[in-house]
């Protein structure tokens, strides 16, 4: 419904006049000869501010007063209908109070008139300049911090911008990686828990205001880099996160040092394999993988046959040498990602992730053969040794402790059957102990 329909003509005129009085953009209508035919109050005010009296100045004088040469341009376009000048910024000469930034536009809707609009964008320009200044200052600060990489991310974790120190950190040229997910740079080693995806990070950031992630990253040349990454949201005026800032610090050296310290408590010093505690830690990490289908994993328990006799005959040093040789054989034979541990005197445990019973049996059999063919020379004489092995595939719903106990029971059977052999634990097998 037309709300003006019920108004008297006079009222309509008043409404239109008031509308024009309050229009925040200056509009000037020039006649064909250049006379100022009409203009709104905003135009009067702005022209007065610029020292142009619209009551006395004609169109060309106004045009040139705003932008020198504009009058000639207008005259040259005589006879042309449509846009004479698309929106253009200008800084009129001698503004009375500070620099003035205007946007001018000139349109000739018909041959009898030309419309000039003037918009004051001084505030916008000042804001843009201040923003540019801030960016330059931040740029200087960011370029000169070493060992830190600062990246701006969009809400999907894509890099929109990053500082030059990324070059030295990841070994890439400026601008490389922009538009790609930051987490593409994370190292993806299958033996490690998978890196969190960005949605997880996003949720954490939303909840606690920031998120920290210590993870291995992969440099362009393939080298590993340990990065301490803190992600914080950039809150926009509406109170919501509009983007993220990620600061990554190179902590490779620190990580190596703490890893060494940590290793001592989880490593068997004789063989360099994990000790029982190390095994448990890895199992915990592996079993608390957040996403993905549960893995089929198998356990192998390995025990040296008649090890006591070796110790008694050749001495403890000989026994240690033998243990180290067996450990090395395990390392050579196991797959990357298998967890190897020495859990007792002459007892070893292997956790084989993503491995069902047949493959586990194969591996155990290969281990048995490799150890049997080992020629270990101790005090000038060659000592031969055999091992017995028990294998158990962890059943769905079964705890790892229970699976390991079944492997142990299978090992016991292997010993009973005469040693130097591999036995597979049946689903219900229980330890005789």
């Amino acid at each position, binding site marked *: 419904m037309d709300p003006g329909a019920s108004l008297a003509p006079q009222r309509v*005129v*008043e409404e239109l*006049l*008031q509308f*024009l*009085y*309050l229009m925040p953009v200056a509009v000037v209508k020039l006649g064909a000869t250049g006379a*100022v*035919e*009409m*203009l*709104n*109050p*905003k*135009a*009067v*005010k702005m022209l*007065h*501010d610029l020292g142009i*009296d*619209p*009551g*006395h100045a004609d169109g060309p004088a106004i045009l040139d007063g705003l932008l020198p040469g504009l009058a000639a341009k207008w005259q040259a376009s005589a006879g042309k209908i449509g846009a004479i000048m698309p929106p253009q910024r200008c800084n009129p000469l001698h503004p*009375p*109070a500070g620099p003035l930034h205007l946007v001018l536009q000139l349109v000739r809707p018909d041959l009898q008139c030309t419309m000039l609009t003037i918009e004051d964008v001084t505030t916008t320009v000042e804001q843009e300049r201040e923003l540019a200044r801030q960016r330059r200052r931040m740029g200087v600060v960011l370029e000169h911090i070493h060992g830190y990489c600062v990246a701006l991310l969009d809400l999907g974790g894509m890099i929109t911008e990053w500082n030059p120190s990324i070059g030295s950190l990841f070994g890439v040229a400026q601008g490389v990686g922009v538009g790609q997910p930051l987490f593409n740079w994370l190292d993806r080693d299958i033996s490690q828990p998978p890196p969190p995806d960005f949605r997880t990070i996003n949720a954490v950031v939303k909840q606690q205001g920031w998120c920290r992630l210590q993870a291995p990253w992969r440099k362009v040349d393939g080298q590993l880099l340990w990065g301490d990454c803190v992600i914080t949201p950039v809150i926009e005026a509406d109170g919501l996160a509009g983007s993220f800032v990620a600061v990554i610090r190179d902590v490779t050296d620190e990580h190596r040092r703490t890893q060494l310290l940590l290793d001592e408590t989880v490593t068997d010093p004789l063989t360099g394999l994990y000790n029982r505690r190390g095994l448990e830690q890895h199992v915990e990490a592996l079993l608390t993988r957040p996403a993905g289908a549960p893995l089929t994993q198998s356990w192998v328990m390995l025990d040296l046959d008649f090890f006591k006799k070796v110790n008694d005959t050749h001495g403890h040093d000989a026994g240690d040498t033998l243990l180290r040789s067996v450990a090395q054989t395990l390392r050579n034979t196991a797959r990357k990602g298998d967890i190897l541990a020495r859990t007792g005197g002459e007892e070893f445990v292997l956790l084989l992730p993503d491995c069902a019973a047949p493959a586990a049996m194969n591996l155990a059999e290969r281990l048995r053969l490799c150890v049997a063919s080992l020629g270990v020379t101790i005090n000038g004489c060659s000592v031969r040794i055999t091992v017995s092995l028990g294998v158990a595939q962890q059943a769905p719903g079964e705890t790892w402790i229970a699976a390991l106990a079944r492997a142990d029971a299978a090992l016991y059977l292997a010993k009973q059957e005469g040693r130097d052999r591999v036995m597979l634990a049946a689903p219900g097998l229980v330890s005789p102990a």
Partner: protein
Amino acid sequence: MKFAGPSKTGRDLELKTMRIPEFDAPGIAAALTAMADDELDALPFGVVEMDRQCTVLRYNATESRSSGLPPERVVGRHFFRDVAPCSDNRLVAQRYALDALDETLGYTFLLRMRPVVVTLRMLKSVESDRMYLLVRW
């Protein structure tokens, strides 16, 4: 034109002259404050009466005819900001920041969006709580 036209008697003339102050008469502000609305409407020049916050109190008929805005669209509003933004600048509006003001100025006003050169008289005094803008079209 109630007060215009030649008067018949000297006594009348004296009376009317007193009651129809000239645009540039000294001390006009006090006379305007004392005038009734219809007397203000009868003046041949535009009168905008404002309080010290520039809110329009009275807007006479001459000014209303020229601007095309009836008083009810103007009274109660901030004159320079909401009624006549063309004068919201250092030449006019900002002059009213002075404690006392009586200045006459050639300025361009709009008569239904057409530029017209007018004479403005800006009035403000320490004693009065009313401010005036007179417009001779």
